[in-house]
């Protein structure tokens, strides 16, 4: 559906700007992704560094960190998610308005990291909410977060506005609310959200 690049350049020389609605819409969306001001652990320090003058996330249109989930488009899970914190993370995600995106930043957020064998750490936030970009690292450097952000921009740019692959905010059937796990005797209940976590959970019988 896109306009042919050569034709576009040729028309541009003549002072004619040609685009598609899809391209224009996604151009606007990808350059104004506002992250939520929300840090969980040491990765948050790198996230803060990314926004400061040296790395300057503002170059990508993401300088406005909103302190309210209602005004944010992007949740950066920056750090270890403990089983005590996981319900609050899912609740904050539920409170964000569509379109919303998630970057899981660092080893802990994507898998539990060095604390994976612990009794109190969630083994990856993708067990409860859909994650768009995972970045490894302990903690990832600001460059890595910028790379994740650019990857997310490419992902937004490539989203068609119609059809099966359209983003969730254009799909009335899409799930908006994700179940918030509740603390129970030894783990969170349920231990995973089956809708976003396709792999088998370890020892499903022992949870609850």
């Amino acid at each position, binding site marked *: 559906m896109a306009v042919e690049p050569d034709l576009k350049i040729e028309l541009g020389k003549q002072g004619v700007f040609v685009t598609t609605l899809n391209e224009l819409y996604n151009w606007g969306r990808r350059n104004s992704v506002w992250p939520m001001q929300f840090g969980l652990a040491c990765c948050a320090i790198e996230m803060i560094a990314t926004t400061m003058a040296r790395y300057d996330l503002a170059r990508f249109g993401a300088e406005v960190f909103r302190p309210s989930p209602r005004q944010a488009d992007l949740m950066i899970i920056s750090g270890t998610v403990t089983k005590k914190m996981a319900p609050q993370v899912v609740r904050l995600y539920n409170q964000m308005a569509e379109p919303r995106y998630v970057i899981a930043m660092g080893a802990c957020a994507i898998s539990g990291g060095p604390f994976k064998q612990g*009794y109190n750490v969630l083994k990856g936030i993708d067990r409860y909410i859909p994650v768009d970009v995972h970045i490894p690292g302990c903690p990832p450097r600001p460059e890595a977060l910028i790379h994740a952000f650019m990857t997310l921009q490419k992902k937004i740019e490539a989203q068609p506005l119609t059809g099966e692959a359209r983003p969730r905010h254009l799909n009335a059937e899409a799930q908006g609310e994700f179940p918030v796990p509740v603390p129970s005797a030894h783990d969170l209940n349920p231990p995973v959200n089956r809708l976003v976590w396709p792999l088998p959970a370890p020892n499903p019988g022992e949870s609850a």
Partner: protein
Amino acid sequence: MSATLHGKDAVLAEMGQHPAISAVMEKMPDALTDARWDREELTLTIAPEKLVPVAGVIRQAGYNFLEDVTAVDWFPAQEPRFQVSYHLLSHARKERIRLRVMLAASKPEVETITDVWPSANYYEREVFDLFGVHFAGHPNLRRILMPDEWTGHPLRKDYPVEGYR
């Protein structure tokens, strides 16, 4: 002074003039059940039922600041199983000592020292949360780190190392 002194008698023989030891031996000599001087650290083992008065005596002797309360689970090597440690600092002497009480597995309970050092409040809650040691008379003995719904005490040696997944 020797590098290590094991046992109450050896410590009393060489360090009898130490302000904390002399204060305890003067006011309540039967409360001190064991002592050890090792790696420049003095550890006094106190009979659990006499902990609070001994803490008061040692505070009077100049050890004014409670730095830390923590615990060790010696399961299955030892009985009494639980050791609760109190680290004290004297600002005037610039010196630390450690008090410890040994508690049986059947009844891991000791009286709270929040009446002597109010700052012990959160430390004792933490020890209760993670080791299941009860502090009798504590003003607010609830879990502090784990969720309220949690069962079990994760730092006990018989708790599964990886939790219940």
